[in-house]
């Protein structure tokens, strides 16, 4: 195939990315601790060079700590669970762009004079492939356009800051591999042979499966507008037409919420909620195995932050600052800095949200996923399909999604109020009405017993 890749550059990239990731994760833990401290009016870790060497001290401590494997665990699964958690987290990073990229060219099948938009099936034999390429070349000569082969040459001449460039199922791959990460959690919790661990992993599996759905649905809108699952093309589409967050703010909010749940971050950190479940699925783990779980979790956080900025915030693109056609060293550095800045911004947002919202109860968590986020994302996606197909106000109809998003959000609010009104039965009964199954719905008739001061 003509999509040669340079082994040397790829290996160098992989090593560089994994190296940066390892350091990055270690320092993310420091950043997390520092931000937690600042939010709580504390100072945070400030020994060992004002805290700068703290991650290294932590790493050495975890490496040298005694490895405890309880007698009653299922040894094989107990051992491979942290490895699975880490490997899946690393693998999901393979297709996520972390720096400047250019859109991968599309090979179009012109053989029967009826161009299909993109090759449905990649040619399996050399002769078939040559036929497609020939048709493409002759058409390029005819139309005086750039042929696929030349596009590929240009594409390959630039360093793509993504470990596996030109992956047409990009976003699907991230979700597929990312949700494999739950196996690490489930195996870890189950093989620990411990009630708390098992409860943690059960919660985790239910939570991750539930939040996959709004996650997928919110990205589906972006995929529909772009017409491709390839992340590089999603970026290019945003460079050409504006960031997706401008058109689909509601999808962005749903995506962010689902990502919090997928990463087990605080409003949804039920798998390890330490106040209820000791440590959740990693209760029995110690030393480096525990560190691997932690590592996988933070890697997941980085991956999803990359994904967030790629899908909704234009990755390396910043209007008037980064020029898409600038491939000089300075241009690349600038794009890299913009991408890194956006990612760090999201990670800090993650950490601030952690200290802003309280943890949901488990039924509230399920309620949010199935009764709130799923209908909202379905409604928003349906409207988007109509807008994209019928184009009610011409080419720029996609802007309609902005008011529509707001309308759907407000409508969901009104419906929520309506649904949480107490029923006639509940008003009559002496027992205080406690909402419709959930704690956060309105408790109109509930009466709180206040102790009077005369006691």
């Amino acid at each position, binding site marked *: 195939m003509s999509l040669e890749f340079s082994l040397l550059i790829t290996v160098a990239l992989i090593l560089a990315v994994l190296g940066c990731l390892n350091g990055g994760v270690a320092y993310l833990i420091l950043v997390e601790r520092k*931000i937690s*401290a*600042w*939010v*709580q*009016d*504390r*100072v945070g870790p400030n020994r060992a060079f004002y805290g700068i060497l703290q991650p290294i001290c932590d790493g050495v401590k975890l490496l040298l700590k005694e490895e405890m494997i309880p007698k009653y665990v299922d040894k094989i699964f107990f051992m491979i669970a942290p490895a699975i958690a880490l490997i899946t987290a690393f693998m999901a990073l393979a297709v996520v762009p972390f720096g400047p990229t250019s859109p991968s060219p599309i090979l179009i099948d012109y053989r029967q004079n009826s161009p299909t938009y993109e090759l449905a099936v990649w040619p399996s034999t050399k002769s078939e492939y040559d036929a497609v390429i020939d048709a493409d070349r002759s058409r390029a000569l005819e139309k005086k356009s750039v042929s696929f082969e030349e596009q590929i040459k240009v594409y390959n001449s630039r360093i793509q800051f993504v470990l596996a460039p030109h992956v047409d199922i990009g976003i699907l791959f991230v979700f597929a591999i990312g949700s494999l990460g739950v196996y690490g959690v489930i195996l870890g919790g189950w093989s620990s042979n411990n009630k708390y661990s098992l409860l943690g992993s059960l919660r985790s599996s239910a939570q991750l499966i539930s939040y996959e759905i709004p996650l997928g649905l919110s990205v589906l809108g972006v995929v529909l507008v772009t017409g491709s699952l390839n992340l590089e093309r999603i970026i290019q589409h945003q460079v050409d037409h504006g960031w997706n967050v401008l058109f689909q703010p509601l999808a962005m*909010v749903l995506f962010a919420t689902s990502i919090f749940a997928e990463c087990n971050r605080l409003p949804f950190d039920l798998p390890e909620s330490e106040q209820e479940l000791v440590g959740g699925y990693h209760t029995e783990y110690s030393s480096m195995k525990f560190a691997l779980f932690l590592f996988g979790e933070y890697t997941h956080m980085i991956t999803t932050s990359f994904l967030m900025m790629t899908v909704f915030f234009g990755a390396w693109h910043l209007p008037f600052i980064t020029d898409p056609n600038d491939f000089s060293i300075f241009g690349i550095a600038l794009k890299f800095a913009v991408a890194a800045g956006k990612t760090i911004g999201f990670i800090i947002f993650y950490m*601030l*949200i952690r*200290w*802003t*919202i309280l943890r949901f109860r488990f039924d509230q968590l399920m309620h949010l996923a199935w009764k709130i986020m799923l209908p909202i994302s379905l409604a928003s996606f349906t409207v988007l399909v109509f807008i994209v197909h019928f184009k009610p106000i011409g080419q720029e109809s996609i802007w309609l999604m902005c008011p529509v998003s707001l309308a759907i*959000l*407000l409508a*969901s*609010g*009104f419906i*929520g*109020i309506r649904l*949480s009104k107490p029923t006639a039965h509940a008003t009559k009964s002496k027992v205080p009405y406690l909402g419709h199954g959930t704690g956060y*719905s*309105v*408790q*109109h*008739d*509930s*009466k*709180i*017993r*206040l*102790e*009077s001061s*005369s*006691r």
Partner: protein
Amino acid sequence: MKADEITWVKSPEFGVMDQIFLPAIFTGLVTTLTHMGSTLFGPKKDVVTQQFPEQRPHLPANYRGVHRLNRDDEGRVKCVACYMCSTACPAHCIDIVAAPSPWPDREKYPEVFVIDELRCIYCGMCEQACPVDAIELTTLYDLTGHSREEMIFNKEKLLSVFDKTVAMGTDPIRTTHGRLGVASEPASSGVTGSSSMQT
């Protein structure tokens, strides 16, 4: 509590803005960021952290830390070896051997006075039981040692704790504010058994 003392209130109703969460989350984020900003850029006194080994906390005078054996005005041990403290001690960590007093104002004095600081539960009952306010708990809290033997404090050690705390000016609350025991009041008030005068 009687029924008419109960005030029934209605919980506030959720509006649309509460129901769609996002404005509430935004308000919460503002609070979070305000705290973060005040820690980072605000005055130092807003930060609650105490840098422990360098910066010592100011404990209240009624804190129950390491014991001390008080001295009277002449620098002698105040204890009259009555065994009240060791009797009151729920952890049985006080060990006293009494001997005839070399001084005319009391019958006995402690020849040996040992407290096992590792057995002690720091309940302060010895302090309450003492009729002459000879034993007190100080605000010293960072008690460490290399061996168990090191943590068994004898009379000299306990008296040196008194000297140290007096020098530091961290007298326990009874010495400075509280009403002292009957037996430790001056001899002129008609009570025998003690000659010392508390400050």
